[in-house]
Structure formats: structure tokens, C-alpha cells
């Protein structure tokens, strides 16, 4: 221990209480963390929903076109372009373009939700597409042979199974998204990371605010991961013998 902390002055430990007080209690500075946390959660949740809807739509367009190349030709091109651009550029650049250029006059928080949602949609689309393709062809044939049209077969038979197959992968995508939103501070949004950073810039103490921020992310991710394994167990109940 002594050698490890040799370069840290003793006052570091004796001042911990004082630092904690300065960082979080004084002038209600903990509110930076609380508000930041709220913003991070809200951005993530809304982006998740946008991502799932957008991703599913894009996946459906691409699958429909793939099965019948005459259908949705233009829409498929647009979707292809969307996937290429979004996956080929950094999310931070996309966020800045959205906030400072495309929706320069919009409410920054809303624009950020949209930007993260659009970004996430591109990754979710590919996951869902693979999920749809993983459903056995016989399932479609069985549905069609009962007189269901292709849309009903897709929505009642294929998609539920596809979602089930990819739920863990999609959920993982959202755990990643939660951490990715930490760049929102770049465009002036006070998310969890920015909240911690603001405290650091006021008190000049980097240790406590940033470690607290890290700990909050970590706990969130651990909780979500626990939810994920619970979800997986529930989804696989119908597979049990």
C-alpha cells in the first residue's frame, strides 16, 4: 500500500470528507448528477424506442425487397444508404451535425434523442434482419398454407419469433447505447457524464465526481444485464422440454 500511494499526499485521504462535501453537498451540487442521470436515462429510453421502430421498418423493407427484388426498390436504396452512412460515420459527428446543422433551431435534448435513435436504428436493423432470416422458411409456408396473407404471416408468426431470437442482441445494443450517450455533453446537453464534469470544473476535484459517474454507469449496466438474463430465461420457456 505504501509504495502504491507513495506519490499521493496524505492529505488526499484526510480531505476526502471535505471533498465529498464540496463536490456534492455544497450548493446542492449533487443535483448536477441527479439531473444528468435523468437526462441520460430519458435520452437512452427514447432513443431505444426510436431505434427499435426504425430498425424494424428498415429490416422489413430490406427483407421484402430481398424476397422479391421488384418490390420497394427505391425504399430499399434509401435504407441501404441510411445503413451505410450511419454505420460509416462516428456517432459524435452525427450528433453534432443533427444539433448544429439539420435541427439547429430545435430543442437540443429532443434532437439528441432523435440522433441517438437514428444511429441505434441502423445497428438494430441489421440485428432484426438476421433475426427474421433465422426463422425457418417452413414457418412462412405453414402460415401461408392456412390462408394467412404475407403481412399477417410476418406480423403474427415470423416477427414474434425473430424478436425472440434477437432480443438479447438488441438488448445488448441498448446497454451500449446507454454508455454512448455520454458524448451528449459535446453539444451542451447536461447528461450524467457532463454533470460530473461540471462538478469537476467547479471544485477542481476530478476523483470523486468522475468515479461516482463511472460507478452509476456501472451499476446501471449491471442491473440491465441482470434484466437481460432474466428476459432470456423467460423467452426460452417455450423451448423447454
Amino acid at each position: 500500500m505504501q509504495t502504491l500511494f507513495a506519490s499521493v499526499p496524505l492529505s488526499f485521504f484526510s480531505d476526502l470528507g471535505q471533498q465529498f462535501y464540496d463536490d456534492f453537498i455544497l450548493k446542492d451540487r449533487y443535483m448536477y448528477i441527479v439531473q444528468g442521470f435523468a437526462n441520460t436515462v430519458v435520452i437512452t429510453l427514447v432513443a431505444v424506442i426510436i431505434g427499435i421502430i426504425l430498425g424494424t421498418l428498415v429490416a422489413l423493407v430490406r427483407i421484402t425487397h430481398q424476397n422479391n427484388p421488384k418490390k420497394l426498390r427505391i425504399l430499399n436504396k434509401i435504407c441501404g444508404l441510411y445503413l451505410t452512412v450511419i454505420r460509416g460515420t462516428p456517432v459524435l459527428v452525427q450528433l453534432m451535425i443533427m444539433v448544429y446543422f439539420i435541427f439547429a433551431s430545435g430543442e437540443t435534448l429532443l434532437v439528441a434523442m432523435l440522433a441517438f435513435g437514428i444511429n441505434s436504428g441502423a445497428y438494430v436493423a441489421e440485428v432484426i434482419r438476421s433475426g427474421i432470416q433465422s426463422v425457418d422458411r417452413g414457418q412462412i409456408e405453414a402460415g401461408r398454407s392456412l390462408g394467412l396473407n404475407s403481412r399477417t404471416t410476418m406480423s403474427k408468426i415470423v416477427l414474434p419469433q425473430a424478436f425472440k431470437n434477437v432480443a438479447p442482441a438488441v438488448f445488448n445494443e441498448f446497454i451500449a447505447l446507454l454508455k454512448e450517450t455520454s458524448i451528449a455533453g459535446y453539444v451542451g446537453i447536461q447528461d450524467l457524464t457532463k454533470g460530473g464534469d461540471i462538478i469537476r470544473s467547479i471544485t477542481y476535484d476530478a476523483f470523486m465526481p468522475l468515479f461516482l459517474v463511472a460507478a452509476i454507469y456501472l451499476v446501471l449496466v449491471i442491473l440491465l444485464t441482470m434484466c437481460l438474463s432474466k428476459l432470456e430465461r423467460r423467452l426460452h420457456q417455450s423451448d423447454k422440454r
Partner: protein
Amino acid sequence: MISVKNLEKTFHTQRGDLQVLKGINQEIQKGEKVVVVGPSGSGKSTFLRCLNLLEMPTGGEVWFEGTQINAPGCDVDQLRRKMGMVFQHFNLFPHLSVLKNITLAPVTLKLKSEKEAEDKAMQLLKRIGLQDKANAYPSQLSGGQQQRIAIVRALAMEPDVMLFDEPTSALDPEMVGEVLQVMKELAHEGMTMVVVTHEMNFAREVATRVLFMDEGLVLEEAKPDEFFDHPKNPRLQDFLSKVL
């Protein structure tokens, strides 16, 4: 009831075209039980799948109850309601309970209320002795049970004809009997059936007519006694000598 005129099917593959059906003519009357046998690759499954357009014929005509179903603009979904199909691999919906598997189509297509469909499903399940499996999921059932439920699922649509595509080929030997039993009962009740199978005893016992297909053509058709005891076509004689 079903009329097939000069039916052709060619698959376009990367290695070139493969003609699987080379002009088939058939008339299937109401109440007939037509069993199709032949070596693998003879096109018998493709023939069956052309009857409800799971495969789109590349030539010829398929008529069902007075309508040409492979004509452009024909509402295929409507016609498929009246043609039940049973698959080699059952194709039950794994995410739905047995009961939901059976009621999904009638309820979704608004042919029956949820209650009516469930009553009908339970009645059908009772007939095959699986009423206690109504809330089970397909993966919890044996292959034989799954296939019987797949038959019931098709019957729930109250079809006019039932198509069977090698219904026992994916089953363990000890489960073949229970599925054939359900099919026999169905035949005795007067259901029109077209069955692709390798079960020669079933063909002999149940069929009103047996077709022998090879290389995309029907080479011989006859009543079962005639078919099995006095085969004329040398290829059929050869086939029967191998399978019987």
C-alpha cells in the same frame, strides 16, 4: 375438385435450369384419396406444393373448385383456406401454445370468434386424444404428437381437401403409426386427400388411386391392388422391388 393441366415447374438455379415437373395432367375428384409415390427427386413434393401454390408453376394450369388458381389476379389466400397442408417437418409455430397454433388462422381471418375457435380446437384435440396438451408448447411434444396437432391445425380451417407432404418421413418409427391412424380416420370420414408418402402399406390400405412419379412425370396410375400387384411400367416394377 382439383384439375391439373400440363403442369410444369422449372427451378432456376445458379448451375442452370432444372425442370422438375415435365407436364402433369391430373383430375382429383371430391372424396378421392390420391397417394403419390416415387423415388426422391421425382418431383412428387413439388407437384403437391404446386397445388396450393407454395411453388409457383412455370407452365400449365391448376384449377381448384372451378377457379384457375395460378392465373394472375387470383386471390390465392382465399383458396388456401380450403386446402389444408401438412408438412414433413410439422412446422408448428413454436412461440404459440398448441391451442393458439390451432386457433390462430380461424380467429385472425375472422372466420370464427375466439370462443368458437377454441371450442372447435378442443373438440379436434379430443379426437386425437391430446386435449390435455392444449396449453403446452410444440417443443414439449413428441414428433408424433406435433404432427397430429399440425393435422388438426389444418382441419380447424375446415378445408375441402388436405395435402400431406411426406407427413411421416421425419418421425421416429414408433410414432409413424399414430399419425397414419389419424390420417386413416380422416380418410374414412370422406376427406379428399392428396398424400405424398413412402408408406406403401398406407397407400395400399387407404388410397383410391396411387400415382407413380419419376423424373417429373406420372408414369403410372392405378387402384392400389392393381398398382402394387400388377405394375406395368418397368421403372415402377423396379421401384416396388426396392421398397416392398
